[in-house]
């Protein structure tokens, strides 16, 4: 399984695997928003948590179809399904690789982008915490959407339609956590809820994804 993780990471970093693509997309979203709503710092500071979260979500979505599609095309997914490793484990590893290549860079870059959007000083910590807790759920849920659409020729748009509603609870609690953190309110409830959602999805969704892959490869 570690070998699989290393392979996925290497594939993502090399050969235009879209390693920096999500990050660049994130940057573009953050750059475009001030053009849309005007450069006043007050407004930007108010909407910054939401913008950063929606941007992270879209950046994550952008790379989802790569999780299984390439392996499906060259046939290595068939080998992975028949390998002695349980398919649920393969899915989890794939989600982890996806998170390391898209989620983690976003977490690291978020404070910088927060400065661009005049995110209040105290909220930076919460931004990083919320993304760190929330983005794994995005990756794992993404594997479910990717698994459902893996056999389709033009699954990209359908994938967005399927996955985005699943992101709603994570987005709500993630953005709420930052907003409360920025205003110095009690952050315990959204923090625990966000962590709970992530823990539950990481534990359970791989089973659904694996079931969908088995159906698609039948």
């Amino acid at each position, binding site marked *: 399984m570690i070998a699989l993780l290393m392979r996925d990471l290497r594939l993502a970093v090399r050969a235009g695997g879209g390693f920096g693509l999500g990050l660049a997309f994130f940057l573009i979203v953050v750059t475009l928003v001030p053009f849309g709503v005007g450069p006043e710092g007050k407004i930007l500071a108010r909407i910054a948590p939401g913008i950063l979260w929606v941007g992270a979500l879209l950046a994550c979505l952008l790379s989802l179809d790569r999780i299984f599609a390439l392996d499906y095309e060259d046939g290595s997914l068939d080998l992975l399904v028949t390998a002695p490793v349980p398919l649920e484990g393969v899915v989890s590893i794939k989600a982890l690789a996806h998170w390391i290549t898209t989620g983690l860079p976003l977490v690291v870059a978020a404070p910088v982008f927060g400065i661009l959007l005049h995110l209040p000083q105290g909220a930076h910590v919460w931004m990083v915490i919320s993304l760190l807790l929330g983005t794994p759920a995005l990756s794992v849920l993404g594997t*479910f959407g990717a698994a*459902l*659409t893996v*056999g*389709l020729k033009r*699954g990209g748009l*359908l994938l967005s*339609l*399927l996955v*985005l*509603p*699943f992101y*709603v*609870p994570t987005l*709500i*609690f993630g953005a*709420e956590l930052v907003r409360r953190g920025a205003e110095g309110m009690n952050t315990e*409830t*959204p923090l625990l*809820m966000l962590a709970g*959602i992530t823990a539950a999805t990481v534990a359970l*969704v791989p089973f*659904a994804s694996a*079931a*969908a892959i088995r*159906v*698609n490869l*039948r």
Partner: protein
Amino acid sequence: MSIWEYANPVKFMKTTDKILPWTVGVAAITLIVGLVWGYFFVPAAENFGGSVKVIYVHVPAAMMAINIWVMMVVTSLIWLIRRHHVSALAAKAAAPIGAVMTLIALITGAVWGQPMWGTWWEWDPRLTSFLILFLFYLGYIALWAAVENPDTAADLTGVLSLVGGVFAVLSRYAANFWNQGLHQGATLSMDSEQHIADVYWFPLLLCMAGFIFFFLALVLIRTRTEVRARRLGAIQQRERMA
């Protein structure tokens, strides 16, 4: 003799052939009586005026929108566990009806909200969660349309309906947390203090029954169409082979 006998397509077609006219009849009678009663023979309510009448479409549609997804989850489970094709087709047949019910609930809600709340739309938990439910319906329908092999499509949409059901409920409570609502609380709870007056309750009850039978009739018609389409496809395939 067990309930699973009706999963046999032949038996299903034969039984529903007999049931269907009755369902349509009951649906028509209850809907017409309920709506006419509700719209013309009920006094205008205090604080609400004539706008109270939207309740006779709004509440049953909202109720069906949620329950149709539940029905889809159940039929999908039956398909996933026991592989009865009729069950999968029933789930497929129900999805567009559910989507339309959700849309009806949203639109009638907006029509009611304009004079009452002074806004067409508000990011209230109930409204938001219905919008999300609508998106789930769209995704479900789109997945059915996108996958070519019918068995694969039935499996995938089945899994989607299960996971989607969990997340629809989760979104509901997350939205609850996110924004305090403008929407009134449960009007139809069974404890007497909150319950609406009988004058409005009886026609509403009739309308709810009407919507249930209306849905039943529609889903039977659509499932029968799906079964026939399946047969047609099988016949065509056999001819091509011959």
